[in-house]
């Protein structure tokens, strides 16, 4: 089996997704043996994009012209491009916004010396073709390792569709939404995290982004019936993903 050549890069994000990979200490020796990490600025230098990569794993959303250029360059040099983590997949916290015009915000923050470029932060798929997504803030270790196992075999990862609720019920947790009246985003959020937060009594914040079949319209009605105002709910929804289709039912 030939060693796949990978590029791993970060755009606007906290580097947490890449760190999660570096935190797989037990597996690192095997990974280094099996995979060529050709471009991985967070872990090793020199850092130059050259040649052809079997896959580029990109963390973060794209928020500057420079990042868009880097992203296109990675795309051009890679057979596959994979969005690593929620920011890359959905935008994440860097795309968190209210409805204040961008121009006004720039004036408030930077006064008379605005920054030269004015890109709206966007997920990778707004700029380039994305072949696969491994979501999560950060992605689960087992998902990262499964991704690398798939790439070793020339496959793309299979993506689950079940929401956090399914994981949560499988762990036999009491429903925080139903029994505690909490604003839990479990029904709308893609699972795979073994319901980490609800299992500790903390409602789901939606950090893994929307589940593909989320019934957004019904969930909004339910939150409203439970006494949450639209502003609170919308604010919570936008924390990790700025664009929700509020009319989506399936």
């Amino acid at each position, binding site marked *: 089996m030939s060693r796949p050549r990978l590029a791993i890069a970060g755009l606007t994000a906290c580097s947490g997704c890449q760190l999660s990979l570096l935190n797989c200490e037990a597996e690192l020796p095997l990974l280094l043996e099996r995979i060529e990490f050709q471009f991985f600025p967070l872990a090793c230098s020199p850092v130059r994009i050259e040649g052809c990569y079997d896959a580029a794993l990109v963390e973060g959303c794209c928020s500057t012209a420079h990042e868009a250029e880097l992203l296109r360059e990675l795309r051009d040099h890679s057979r596959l491009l994979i969005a690593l983590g929620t920011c890359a997949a959905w935008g994440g916290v860097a795309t968190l916004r209210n409805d204040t015009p961008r121009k006004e915000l720039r004036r408030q923050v930077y006064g008379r010396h605005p920054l030269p470029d004015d890109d709206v932060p966007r997920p990778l798929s707004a700029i380039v073709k994305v072949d696969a997504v491994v979501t999560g803030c950060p992605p689960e270790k087992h998902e990262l390792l499964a991704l690398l196992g798939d790439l070793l075999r020339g496959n793309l990862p299979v993506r689950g569709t079940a929401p956090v609720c399914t994981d949560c019920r499988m762990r036999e947790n009491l429903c925080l939404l139903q029994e505690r009246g909490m604003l839990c985003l479990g029904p709308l959020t893609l699972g795979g995290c073994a319901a980490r937060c609800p299992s500790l009594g903390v409602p789901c914040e939606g950090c893994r982004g929307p*589940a593909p079949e*989320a019934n957004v319209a*019904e969930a909004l009605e339910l939150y409203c019936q439970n006494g949450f105002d639209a502003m609170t709910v919308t604010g919570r929804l936008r924390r990790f993903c700025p664009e929700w289709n509020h009319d989506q039912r399936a």
Partner: protein
Amino acid sequence: MPLFILPQTALEPFMERLRTVGELHGPLRGSDDAVRFSFLQTGDQPDLTAVRSLLPPKKYLLAPDETILTYRPAAGYQTPAHETGPLILLGVHPCDLAAIAYLDRQFLADPPDPTYAARRKRLILIGNSCTPDNNCSCHQRPSALSTNCDLFLYQQDNGFLISVETPHGERLCQSLGDLLLPAEDQQLPPSSRSNFGLPLPAPSANELDAHLPDWQRLADHCLGCGACSVCCPTCSCFEILEFGGLDGCSAERLRRWDNCLFKSHSEVAGGHSFQKDRAQRFRYRYRHKYRGYGQLQGVPSCVGCGRCRAQCPTGLDLRPLAEYLEKERP
């Protein structure tokens, strides 16, 4: 079937005696007030009057997520080793017993599922009578499924009437001899168990359900959270996932609970889906629950435990539909 009386005061020593036979599990109320089937340590008080546990006892037979096959170059293909030694489930309600009877028909049929068979073999079942609540439907919709178990406890004032149902149960009772009182002149008290094991005709195959606005109404309100099938004692659909190891040659095959209301459940290679929208999937789910499916066509799989209704965040209920569609059957 021989009957004995277990006085309430003898319950604790009864459980202590059971612990010498096997690992004892039963319904335990947690600090969050929810009831779960759990390991009962000495001193733990099982809640034998609880209406229902969050998950049914199927979790002892089919794990939510488990490795069913591994491949390693040196060892070849290997199936996981299973725990042996008796596991006693105390306080299983008639509906959950009927559900196990249904799962047995599915997973012990030819060829048996090795994982299920190994786990089923070590189970000792002690049933328990219960009082149905508004979410239950065993009393509205009786079942042909049997409530087989080794011992059955009928709750009565100041204790239980124990019915001995299998040779295994009989052996258990012999070892409990000094704790039990004879009850020769007693009749079996009325209980929810009498809603099961009835000689009922198979449900009619009417086509009233072909085009109903109800499917779309249910679909519109369904959050797609998956709770209904996770908590259903007879839902046993699963997906198979395979993961390749980082060494490039080992691999693992996983079995994970699935839900027929998910689009991915009816998707096949090439992206084709047999049940494109959620309304269609509701009809499919209904048919499985009330009319049976595949080799168990004609055997309704709903045992009326009420978990799906109790746990649905939007309160969806298939009972009114069943009343309309299955009216030809008692």
